[in-house]
Structure formats: C-alpha cells, structure tokens
C-alpha cells in the first residue's frame, strides 16, 4: 500500500514550487541554497514514486545518484560561499552582481 502516484506527484510539484519561490525571492545566498535542496528533494520524491508505479528498482538507484550530486553541490557551493565572504564581506545576492575576479 502507501500513497498513490497522483498524491506523490502533487506533493512533489508543491515542494518544487515552494523551492522555486525561495530561489527567486530570498536575498541570502544560503537560503537560496536551501531552496535548491528543496527542489532536488521534490525531484527525488517524483523519481521514487514513478519507479514504484512502474515496478522497477532503478528509481532507488537514480535517487542515490541525485543525492550524491546534491551533497557534492552543497560542499562545493558552501566553499564558494566562504571564499566569496572572504572577498566581499557579504553574501547578499543583490550586492554580488558582477563576475570580476
């Protein structure tokens, strides 16, 4: 038993939407990162729901890979954030608007 595919997809879409709103409206870089994590998790939910609906095990494998990508992304992203703070003394996205080294 458990939730149906439709229920999971509605939840996943809602979570993805909330994450997308977060990436657009927040000014703090780290809050944008967290919103991106929300979107990745919404994708994971959809992947696993589809895998279960089709009766294949590959869904779990794909979720595992996505999870690794997300962990690496957070590690490198936060390192970039620390370096950025070293140069600018700020992580406000409105103040970081040029790509000069």
């Amino acid at each position, binding site marked *: 038993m458990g939730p149906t595919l439709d*229920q*999971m997809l509605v939840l996943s879409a809602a979570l993805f939407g909330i994450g997308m709103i977060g990436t657009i409206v927040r000014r703090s870089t780290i809050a944008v990162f967290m919103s991106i994590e*929300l979107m990745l998790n919404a994708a994971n939910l959809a992947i696993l729901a589809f895998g279960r609906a089709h009766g294949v095990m590959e869904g779990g494998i794909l979720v595992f890979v996505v999870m690794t990508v997300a962990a690496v992304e957070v*590690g490198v992203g936060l390192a970039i954030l*620390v370096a950025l703070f070293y140069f600018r003394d700020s992580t406000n996205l409105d103040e970081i608007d040029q790509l000069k080294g």
Partner: protein
Amino acid sequence: MASLAFGILALLTIASALAVVFLPRTFQSAVWLMVCLITIAGHFLLMGSELVAVLQIIVYAGAVVVLFVFVIQLLNMDPQETPVRLHARRREWAVRVAVVFALVVGLFALLRGAPAASHAGPPVLDFEHIRQLCALFLSQHLLAFELTSVLLLAGIIGAVLLAKKEYLKR
C-alpha cells in the same frame, strides 16, 4: 491508515518547506530544512524504500544540514542575533525543553505500541529489497556507481582548493 499517515506527513513537509523559504533568519530556515528532509525520509519509507530513507536521514538531515548550520555560524549570517543569554530567558527555554522532552517521550510510547498493532499484518521490514537494490547497483549500473565516486572525489578536491588560504590570497 496509510493514507492518514501520508496526509499528516505531507502536511508537515509542505509546512516546513514554507518555513524554510519564508522565515527571515537563515538559522531558523536550516532547522526547518532538517524537519522537512526527515519528513521526506518518511515519504520514502511509506513508498517502501527503506535504504533510500535511511540514506536521506544520514546524508541530508545529518551531513548537509550540519554543513549549512556550520557555514551560517562561521559567516555570522544573522547579525541581528545577539548571543543567547540563557539565564535571562530561563522560562522560555524551560518551555522549549519540556516540549521537546514530551515529544520524544510521546514518540517512544508510540513506537513501543507499534509492534502490537503490526503483528496482524505481514512483517514490515524485509531486507530482500535492499539486497536486490544493491545487487542491481553493483552489476548493471556499475558505471553510475563509479562515476558517483569520481564526482565525490572532484567535489572534495574542489572544496579544499576553494577554501585554501593561498588560493584566496591570489
């Protein structure tokens, strides 16, 4: 029964996701992100993927959230936050600790009551699913597995390089 559990979990997921996005302090966002990720692990469990649920808690609710909190505190991202003076807000903290304690005790009581209810049905946990998943991952999808490890290595090297003082001074 399962649909009730799904409803409660889904409500918690959406509410905590909204809290992550709309609470002003980044530290509060990080704590609610942890709640959200744990409820998503609950969804994975409901869908019958125990391995993915456990990995979700270890990797996301554990490592990733700790990394977020670490960077928030390191860069002092909530400048309006003054250091907490425990003795000045004693009553508030007593209430918080009491609520958490009650929740933990309640959860424990719930879990103690659970096996009696599940004796009627088939056993919930069976590790055959995990064994099959891992066998599939290490045979048919070995390339993806190896690429994952290469990606992790690249991530480690990149993070160390970016955080090095010599690189930053350049």
